[in-house]
C-alpha cells in the first residue's frame, strides 16, 4: 500500500501544462509543418493525443500521430515480468526525415526512452527526435534529457508518481505517493 504524499496537478493544472507544452513544441520547431507525434503506450499515448489535438487547433493543420509499444525493446524483458504482453506499435506513416515529438507521461530512469529511441530508429531515420514529458522526477540511469517538461518534481527514489487520465482512470490528476509500506 502506498499513501498519498501530495497532489502535484489537478485537472485544470494538467490542461494548462499540456497547452503550454504544445506551444513550446510549436515555438521550438517554428510551426508544425514537419512534426509527427509519437506517444509511448499507454499513458504517453493519451497525452500525445491531447497534445496533437492542441497543436492541430493552434496551427490549423492535421498531424500524424503514432503509438509506440516499446515492450519488445525493454532491457528487462527476459526476467522480471511474469508475462509481458505486446499489444503492438501503431505507426502507419513514415518517420523518415520528420521531426518526431516523442511523448511520455513520466521521465524517470530513462530506460523507457532508450527503448523508444531504439524502436524509432528501426522504423526509419527521422530528422530529429525530441522528448516531451508531463513529469520529470529525476533519478536518471541513462544520459537522457527531455526537451519539453510539464513539471519537474523532485522525488526520493522509492516514492512514486501516479498519473491519472480521464481516458484510462476517469479523471485527470497527478499524485506523488509515499514509499510502499507493508500492509
Amino acid at each position, binding site marked *: 500500500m502506498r499513501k498519498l504524499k501530495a497532489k502535484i496537478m489537478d485537472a485544470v493544472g494538467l490542461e494548462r501544462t499540456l497547452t503550454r507544452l504544445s506551444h513550446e513544441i510549436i515555438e521550438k520547431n517554428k510551426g508544425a509543418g514537419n512534426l509527427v507525434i509519437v506517444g509511448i503506450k499507454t499513458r504517453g499515448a493519451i497525452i500525445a493525443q491531447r497534445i496533437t489535438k492542441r497543436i492541430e487547433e493552434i496551427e490549423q493543420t492535421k498531424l500524424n500521430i503514432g503509438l509506440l509499444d516499446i515492450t*519488445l*525493446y525493454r532491457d528487462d*524483458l*527476459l*526476467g522480471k515480468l511474469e508475462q509481458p504482453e505486446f499489444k*503492438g506499435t501503431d505507426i502507419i506513416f513514415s518517420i523518415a526525415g520528420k521531426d518526431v515529438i516523442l511523448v511520455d507521461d513520466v521521465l524517470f530512469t530513462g530506460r523507457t526512452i532508450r527503448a523508444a529511441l531504439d524502436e524509432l530508429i*528501426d522504423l526509419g531515420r527521422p530528422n530529429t527526435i525530441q522528448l516531451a514529458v508531463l513529469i520529470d522526477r529525476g533519478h536518471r540511469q541513462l544520459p537522457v534529457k527531455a526537451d519539453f517538461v510539464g513539471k519537474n518534481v523532485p522525488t526520493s527514489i522509492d516514492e512514486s508518481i501516479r498519473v491519472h487520465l480521464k481516458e484510462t482512470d476517469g479523471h485527470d490528476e497527478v499524485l506523488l505517493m509515499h514509499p510502499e509500506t507493508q500492509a
Partner: protein
Amino acid sequence: MPLESRHLLGLQGMSQPDIQLILDTAISFREVLERPIKKVPPLQGKTIANMFFENSTRTRFSFELAERRLSADVLGFQASGTSVAKGETLKDTARNIEAMKVDMVVMRHSASGAPHYLSQVINANVINAGDGSHEHPTQALLDMYTIREKLGKLDGLHVCIVGDIAHSRVARSNIYGLKTMGAKVSVCGPATLMPRGIEKLGVDVYHHIDDIIPHVDVLNVLRIQLERDAGRLFPTIREFHNYYGITRQRLERSPKPITIMHPGPINRDVEISADVADSEHSVILQQVLNGVAIRMAVLYLLATRN
C-alpha cells in the same frame, strides 16, 4: 496472465484465454512484419534449435524467419527417420543440443508424441512443429488467426476440414482449437480416411462433400498423401478428385461465399482445383504470412513467460 504451459505441445486442453492471448499477440507482430526493418530485439541472447526430423521446408522457414525477426540465435538441424534408424536416440540428440545451452527447441517429428517425450527429458521450452498424426499447433493457430482476420470472429462459425482426417495432425489441432474458440467443426472425407471415434471429439462427420458445402463458412482442405493412400485407402486420385475435390462448380452451389484454406503444399487439381486455390476467397497465401506472425507470438510468449 502468463501462458499455462512452458511448452507448446498441442492445442488439446489449451485454454481459451491462452489461445486468445496468442492470437492477439500475433496481431501486434503482423505490424512488425510490415516495417522497413522487420526485426525486433526481444529474444536477443536466446538460442533456438530447430530440430526437424522430417522434411518440411515451409514450416522450417516460417519458424526460422520468426526466430530471426525476434533476434534469436538460430540453430538448424535436419535429419530423417526415427532415432533407431539413425543410431542415436532422440534423447541423446536432444541432450547434446541442450548441452550447447539452447533455450528453446522447435521440433518436427514423424513420431506422434515425440515432442511430449522431449519435454520430459530436457529443460528447454519445447515447441511442437508437427508430430506424426498427432498435433500441429502453430498451423492450427495460424489457421484460426487467418479465419478471424478474414471473417472477424471464430465463435459461431462453421469450419469443415476436408480430406485425410485419419493421418492429419492439422485436423486434430484445428478441431481442438476451433472447438475451444466456439466454432462448429465438421470433417468430411471417405470413411477409410476417418479415424475411429472422431465424432467423440464433438465434430460432425460427412462422407459426401456436397452435403456439407452449403452449410459452412470455411473449408480447410487437407493435402492428400498421394504415395501413401491411393489404392489402399481410396481407389484412385481421379475418383478422389471427382468426389472430394474442391472445385468452383461445387462452391457455386453454396448460397454464401466460402473461405478456402489449405495448409500446403497443394496438390493442384487433386484435393483442390487450381482456380479455387487462386480465387479471391482463397486465403492460402495469407496463411503463410500469418504463420510467421503466429510463430513470433508463440516464441515471444514462451520466452518471456517467467
